[in-house]
């Protein structure tokens, strides 16, 4: 029985595919959806490229339309993405975590590691990995 689902987003198109998939799963099971945005500890864009910093408020407003008719909540945390997703999943007692299979790549992946891999290894519950290659 799936009662609550946690999905992580960095506001990218790939993450939004994962949110869509999570919402489908939530609708099917009548589950509550928790959408989590994890802000990195520091973001160089804040200094050098403020226009490139995601507008999380706007993104969450957009989600409200997209997820209408669904029980959902949004959360914002700061820290390491994978570790925070697992911590929040544990704290919220969710049944499933939904993540995209393609988040960061290239140098960022080398530096930050793969979020879905880390979530898979440390998750306190089942993990649903969405194929988001289409959005890359």
């Amino acid at each position: 029985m799936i009662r609550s689902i946690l999905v992580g987003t960095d506001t990218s198109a790939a993450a939004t595919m994962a949110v869509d998939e999570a919402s489908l799963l939530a609708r099917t099971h009548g589950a509550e959806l928790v959408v989590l945005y994890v802000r990195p500890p520091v973001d160089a864009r804040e200094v050098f490229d403020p226009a490139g910093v995601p507008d999380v408020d706007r993104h969450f407003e957009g989600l409200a339309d997209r997820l209408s008719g669904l029980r959902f909540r949004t959360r914002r945390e700061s820290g390491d993405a994978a570790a925070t997703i697992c911590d929040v999943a544990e704290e919220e007692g969710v049944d499933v975590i939904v993540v995209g299979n393609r988040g960061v790549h290239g140098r960022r992946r080398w530096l930050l590691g793969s979020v879905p891999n880390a979530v898979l290894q440390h998750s306190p519950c089942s993990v649903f990995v969405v194929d988001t290659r289409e959005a890359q």
Partner: protein
Amino acid sequence: MTASPAVRVRESARSWRRVLRSFYSRPLAYGAAVFVSAILAYAGGGIMFWLHAIYRGENGPPIGHWQHWLLDSTLGFVALTPVVLLLLPAVLWTLGWQGRKADGVRVGGYVVVVGMLFALVTGPGPLLHNAIAGAGTPLANLATDVFGPDPQMVERQTDAPERSAFTEGVLQVALGIPVYSLLTLASIAAVRRVVRLSRRDRGPGAARAPTLAGAGR
């Protein structure tokens, strides 16, 4: 129960690693940090060269002003780039913007703190300069061989006054704080401009961070 000092040190080291990894996870950060470092070393170095070599008449190698500036600034660039690479994310983390908008006050505070810390780091610069590239050192002799002696500088060197390294260091920091703060601000503004221009070249779709609009299914 409080954590032991060893645990606290480990936690602190882990936090710093996370901060550095997070900041440098974007290619923009590398380029921008090296650019800031180059501006601080060469433009800031130019002003400091004027202060120490021309205004205060330090006892450097007897070479032309341009060559002397290039030598000192390049040494400064090599030695201080790692400092800049650490300072930029460290100050951002310490000030804790936490995703708030980078308005004028925050950017102003950021550049002043970076400029102040960078000036403090360069405080021992005059002392190190005399030890590494001062008149009579192997590096100064090599520079004189490579660039050739400047007759005016050779003459000036004979009656160069003795200066206290402490006084020169204090002057370095005192002038450095406003100079490095302004140069940090100018270099951040230049990077932002380049980023904006490159976005414009890539078209209007690239003007914002990706959001829901880009995720049509």
